[in-house]
C-alpha cells in the first residue's frame, strides 16, 4: 500500500497529466461537438504541432515565438484541410469521415517521417521552465507546473470563443439548419472553416506545449489520439466541459493507479470508460441524443 505522500504526489501529477489530456481532447471535441466531424487525424496534428515548434526553435531560442509561429502554421493547415477535404464530408456518413481523416493522419505522419526521419527530435525546455520546484510533499518539474496554467488559459480562451461569441452561435445554428442560416445572410461555410482550424490549432497547441516533455517523433500522436478519444467518451461526445472533466478524471485514474501498480493504469482507464458507457452511455456531459 503506497504511503500518503506518494498518493498525494500522484494525485497532483494526475492533475498535470489530466490538464494536458483535456487540452488534447478539446481539439477533438470542438470539431465533433460543433461540426459533427470525427477527426482521426487529431493525433497526427498533435504531432505536427510538436514538429512546428521543433523547426522554429532551430532558428530562435524563444519557445513563445515558436508557439506563435507554429500556431499560425497550424491554423493554415486547418484552413487548407477544411477547404480541400473536410468540407466535402460534412454531409457524408461518419464512416466516410473516419476513413478520410484517418487517411489524412497517415499522410501527415509519413510526410513528417519522410522529411525528418524516424529519430526523435530534441525540443529543449524554455529557460523559464527549467528546474524543479518543491511543493512540500513532493518536488515537481517547473515546466509541468507552468503547463497547468498555460493549458487552463488556452482552454478558457477556446471556451469563450466557441460558446460565448457569435462564432459559436453561428456554428451551432449552422449545424441545425445550414440553409436557414445562409438565408439570414451569414456565411456558414466560412465559419465552419474557422472552427475546424481552431480544432486543429488546439491539437497542434497541445503538441507544442508537450514537445519539451516528450520524445518528438512521427508516431508520438498515436497514444494521444487513443487517450483523447477515451477522454471525449468519458466526458461526453462533443461536450467541451466534458473534455475538460474527462481529461482531469483520466489523468487521475492513470496517475493514482500507477501508485499501486503502473501496469494497470491504462487498463483501469479503459475499464472506467467501459463502465461509464454501461451506466451513462452519453458520458458525463454528453448532449441528449448523442449517445
Amino acid at each position, binding site marked *: 500500500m503506497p504511503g500518503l*505522500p*506518494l498518493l498525494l*504526489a*500522484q494525485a497532483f*501529477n*494526475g492533475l*498535470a*497529466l489530466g490538464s*494536458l489530456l483535456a487540452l488534447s481532447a478539446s481539439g477533438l471535441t470542438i470539431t465533433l461537438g460543433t461540426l459533427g466531424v470525427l477527426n482521426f487525424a487529431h493525433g497526427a496534428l498533435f504531432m505536427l504541432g510538436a514538429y512546428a515548434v521543433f523547426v522554429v526553435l532551430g532558428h530562435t531560442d524563444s519557445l513563445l515565438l515558436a508557439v506563435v509561429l507554429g500556431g499560425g502554421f497550424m491554423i493554415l493547415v486547418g484552413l487548407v484541410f477544411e477547404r480541400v477535404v473536410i468540407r466535402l464530408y460534412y454531409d457524408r456518413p461518419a464512416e466516410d469521415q473516419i476513413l478520410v481523416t484517418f487517411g489524412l493522419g497517415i499522410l501527415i*505522419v*509519413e510526410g513528417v*517521417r519522410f522529411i525528418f*526521419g*524516424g*529519430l*526523435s*527530435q*530534441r525540443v529543449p*525546455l524554455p529557460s523559464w521552465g527549467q528546474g*524543479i520546484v518543491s511543493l512540500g510533499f*513532493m*518536488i*515537481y*518539474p517547473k*515546466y*509541468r507546473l507552468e503547463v497547468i496554467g498555460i493549458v487552463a488559459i488556452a482552454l478558457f480562451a477556446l471556451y469563450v470563443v466557441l460558446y460565448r461569441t457569435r462564432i459559436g452561435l453561428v456554428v451551432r445554428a449552422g449545424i441545425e439548419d445550414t440553409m436557414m442560416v445562409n438565408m439570414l445572410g451569414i456565411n456558414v461555410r466560412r465559419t465552419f472553416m474557422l472552427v475546424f482550424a481552431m480544432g486543429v490549432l488546439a491539437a497542434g497547441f497541445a503538441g507544442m506545449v*508537450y514537445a519539451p*516533455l*516528450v*520524445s518528438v*517523433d*512521427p*508516431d*508520438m500522436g*498515436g*497514444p*494521444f489520439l487513443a487517450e483523447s478519444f477515451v477522454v471525449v467518451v468519458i466526458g461526453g461526445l462533443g461536450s467541451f466541459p466534458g473534455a475538460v472533466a474527462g481529461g482531469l478524471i483520466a489523468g487521475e485514474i*492513470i*496517475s493514482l493507479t*500507477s*501508485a499501486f501498480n*503502473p*501496469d494497470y*493504469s*491504462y487498463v483501469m482507464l479503459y475499464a472506467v470508460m467501459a463502465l461509464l458507457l454501461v451506466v451513462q452511455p452519453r458520458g458525463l456531459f454528453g448532449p441528449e441524443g448523442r449517445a
Partner: protein
Amino acid sequence: MKNRQSSGLGRRSVLAAGLAAGGGLGLPLFFPGLAEAASYPPLGNFPAGVAGDSAFIGITPPLTGAYSADGKDHALGYQLAIAQINAGGAIPAAWGLKGKGVLGKTLRYKIADSELKPNVAVQAQTQFIEQDHAIMITGCVSSATAIALEELAQRMKVLNMVGCSGSNDTTSKDCQRYGFRSQPSAHMAATALGPVVAKALGSNRKVAYLVPDYTYGFSVFDSFSNATKKYGWTTTSKQVVPVGAADYSSALINIANSGADIFCNIAFGNDAVASCKQADQFGVLKKMKLVVPNISAFQAQELGAKIMSGVYGTFDFWWTLEDRYPLAKTFVETFDAANKYRPSWGAHIAYMQTYVWAVAVERAGTFYPVEVIKTLEASKADPFDSTLGKVWYRAEDHQMVRPVPVVQGKMPADMKTKDDYFNILEMVPGEQVINPLTDLMGCKLGTYT
C-alpha cells in the same frame, strides 16, 4: 564436405538430356553439383527457391512505430551486405566468400514494414516465403516479432537469421531449430555489465527499474536483477510501462520516491529517449545513477551527451570497434560512405547476420536448410571471421557466442567527434557470460525436417 549446388533448372534439363544421350555413365563425376542437388529432398523453399540464378531474402524491419529509426538503420545494414556480396571482390572475400553472390547466385530481397507488429511481420514474411520463395527470412527490432518469425521459420522450414532481439526467450523457451540470433541475450548483456557497474557504483545498492511491458523488458529485468544480486543490489521499485507510452511521469514519481540509488532504464528506442528526458526533468538523474542494460542505437544522439555522460550499458556493436577488428573497419567505412553516418548496432546485426549466413551456405555447399543449420551449429569448431572477431553459434540453443561491448557515456568535453558518445570499457568474451549448457532456460530446438 558437400559440393556446390547446381545453379539452374534450365541447365539441369540440358544436362539431363545430355546424360540420356551419353548413356548416363560418369556424368556426376564431371558435374558434382547435379548429384548434390539430387541428394537432398525438397524442404521449405529448397530447391525451388534457388532453382534460378538468384536467391531471395525476405526482410521485415519496423519502418514505422516507436523503433522506426532503428528499423531504417537495420534495413540499410541488409542492403549494404547484400550489395557487397552480389558485387563480390575483396570485402566478401575477407569474410570467406568466393566470387560474386552466394554459391554463384545473386541475392535478391524485398523489404516490408513490420510496423513493429509481430502479426504484420509474419504476414509479410509468409508472402515472401510463398510468393517470392524466400530461402532466408530476417529483420526485426523487437523480440516479440523475432519470436513470431522464428515460429514461422520453423513451420515453413525456412531459415531465420534473427534481427535485433535482446530477450532471453528468443534463444531459450522460444528457441527454434530454424532461428539463429547474433545479438547478445539479455542474460549475456546483464552478466557482462553486472561486475562492471558493481565495481564502478559499489555494492549493496538499491535499484529502481523502468520496464517495458513485453518479453524483452521482463527478460532484461530478470537478467539484470539476477546478475547484480550477488553484489547486494536489490530492487526497490519495478515500474512496468506500455511500449510507446509518451508520458512516464507517474512511473517516475514512484521511482523518485523509491529511495533507490540506481535508475535502471530498460525502455527501448524512442521510449528510452522520452523516459530518460523526463527522468532528467523530474530530478531522478541527479539523485540516481543511470544504468541502461541495452542502450538503444540512437539514444545518445537523441538525448545528447549531457544526459548520457557517465551512463553504463552494453551494445551489440559500437562504431569505434573499427579500431579493433578489420571487418568492423570495412563495415563502418563502407556504411558511412553509402549513408553519410556511422552505423548503429541495428545495421550491424543486419550486416553481420547476412554475411554469416552467406558464409555458412558456401561452407555447406548448398542452400538446403538442414545442411546450412548443421554448418551453423558446427561453427564452434570453425568459427566465423566477423566484425567482432571470431564468433560461433551454440548448437544447443542457436545463440551466437561473441564478445559483449560494455560501454560508458563520455563527457561532452571528451568526445573527439560529434558521434563519439561512448567509451568501450570492456569487450567481455561471450564464453564468460553465456548461460551454461546445464541451464538452457527451457530451450528445446525443433526438428530439422
